[in-house]
């Protein structure tokens, strides 16, 4: 199973990338563990999650091919 993860705002600096393809990450909790393990700085960071371009709250299970976006606090205007 593969998912594509997109990073925005400060998370692009923390991860050094705009997107990454990940294997066998089945839910949001596993994605957070992966993120925290690989980029410890991200532990201090708050973010919302979008799956396939829709904002989602709560527990999330991923499907093969899902596009996950991690969105730090917004700063527009």
């Amino acid at each position, binding site marked *: 199973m593969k998912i594509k993860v997109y990073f925005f*705002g400060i998370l692009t600096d923390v991860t050094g990338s705009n997107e990454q393809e990940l294997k066998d990450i089945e839910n949001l909790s596993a994605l957070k563990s992966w993120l925290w393990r690989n980029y410890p700085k991200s532990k201090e960071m708050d973010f919302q999650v979008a799956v396939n371009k829709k904002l989602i709250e709560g527990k999330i299970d991923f499907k093969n091919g899902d596009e996950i*976006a991690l*969105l730090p606090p*917004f700063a*527009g205007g």
Partner: protein
Amino acid sequence: MLLQNKNFLQEGPILPDQISDIIDQVKSFNIGAYALFLGQVRADTINHKTVTEIEYSAYPEIVENETCGIFETIFNQYNDLQLIHITHSTGKVKVGEISLIVLVGSKHRGPVFKALEETLELIKSKLPVWKKEYFNDDSYTWTQNTPQ
């Protein structure tokens, strides 16, 4: 017919001529009052460094959905309202340049100021837009919105 624009994001600064163009293009004889908000990049000084420009980035697909949601919310709340226009910059915008236009138009002046303010607050809280402030020594920082 209620009026709302379609392209919410624009690469680079918003030019002063665009503001008059928007009003010129509306051509609605139902509008008797407009209220306009312009967001401008400010030369803040932080730790002895001065902001020279802001680079905005966004998640365009969600910006589009959420902006449509803002139109719906505000039009439902203010019956007299005829027009909402929102344009937000992406990419680099220098100090003194405009990065946001919000224009609302109504039959009468009553609701325009409240509708404008509420639209602006929704833009700040709902639209996935991020800003990187660049300083005069080429360093930068990611910033978050401050209340009002």
